């Protein structure tokens, strides 16, 4: 199984890197800190996340591209009551929120030096928020597709022409929709960047 997984990784890697010119790929590990309505549901910071970004430079400083990612936040709650009409339910509850951002992005890179390349970026697209509540035998699961946006600031640290590291902070926000109020979180990204010059 492990052998096939590695082979799969290699094939995917070779496929995606073909024919690229002045572009970058970024693979980010994501730490998510819920805010606002999301924090009302789960107020626990989570390190379960990743994001993949591709950007193509259309000028020396400006790049456009896309981002897909996934993050999971989780919380265990105790002694909470849930009442609906005359029915009441209590017990230990396991709450999960899975977020899948799919966004078009635009970024402005400012090259101070070859080593440090700060940038600002904006992403607009959709975020699918899947909320799951497990409580003993009871389980509810709903997926809410929402309009989302995310500003980001960060920097590339580029020790060589083709490889860099990314440190960035994003604020993901969604508008109310799909039967769920607007969601938000702060997301911290550390990533490996591959540049094709």
């Amino acid at each position, binding site marked *: 199984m492990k052998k096939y997984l590695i082979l799969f990784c*290699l094939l995917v*890697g070779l496929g995606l890197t073909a024919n690229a010119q002045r572009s970058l790929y970024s*693979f980010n590990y994501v730490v998510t800190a819920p805010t606002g309505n999301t924090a009302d549901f789960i107020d626990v910071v989570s390190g379960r996340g990743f994001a993949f970004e591709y950007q193509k430079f259309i000028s020396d400083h400006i790049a456009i591209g896309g981002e897909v990612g996934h*993050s*999971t936040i989780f919380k265990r709650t105790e002694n909470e009551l849930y009442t609906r009409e*005359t029915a*009441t339910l*209590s017990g*230990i509850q396991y709450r999960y929120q899975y977020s899948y951002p799919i966004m078009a992005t635009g970024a402005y890179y400012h090259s101070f030096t070859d080593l440090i390349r700060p940038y600002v970026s904006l992403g607009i697209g959709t975020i699918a928020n899947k909320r799951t509540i497990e409580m003993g*035998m009871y389980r509810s699961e709903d997926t809410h597709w929402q309009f989302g946006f995310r500003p980001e600031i960060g920097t590339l640290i580029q020790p060589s022409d083709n490889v860099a590291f990314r440190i960035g902070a994003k604020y993901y926000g969604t508008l109310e929709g799909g039967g769920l109020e607007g969601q938000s979180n702060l997301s911290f990204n550390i990533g490996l960047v591959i540049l094709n010059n």
Partner: protein
Amino acid sequence: MIKFVKRISFGLLLVSGLIACSPEGATFVEEQDVVYTNYNPAFDFKSQSTYSLPDEVISISNGGIAGDSEVPEFLPPQFANPILATLRSNMNALGYREVDESASPDIVLLPSALQTTEVYYYYDWWYWNWYYPGGGGGWYYPGYYPPTVTAVRSGSVFVQMTNPKDVSGSNEVAVNWIAIVNGLLEGEGNGADRIDRTLDQAFTQSPYLQK
């Protein structure tokens, strides 16, 4: 070198994806204990004063078919006694007075253990025929709907609070309060402690029972 880094990074991406998909869940069986209560909002609990409680907790293994014997299977005393004691102490604390079932109680509590993975709200009357004062022929739940549950853990405790003075035209006894503790009799460890805690919770989350 660059290709090598690319390949490694795709591997890292997939591994981090797997991590992201697998958060922790319930580890111990008692962490899955859920207490469900529901009641008839039109029933005036405050005006009731007496209740009766059987000496046994029945064991429901099949809700629809009556058995051949006079009495159903009962739960062993090590489980039944703490259930009955907890029900009694909570009813007394709420201000109700226990009487014999022959003394025309306002409320009759019927505790059962579900040895099934389904909740039988309309289980056969035969299960209580040996005890129930005044008689009846089935159940009805006025003013509320019991929850639709497709699968419960075997060993759940089901308590019905009935009114023997309210029997419908089709001979069904009114059930004015229900409590279901899911999977209470499943698992190991201190069963009496779990019975105490979860059945107490059923009363705590039902403040309308207070006289």
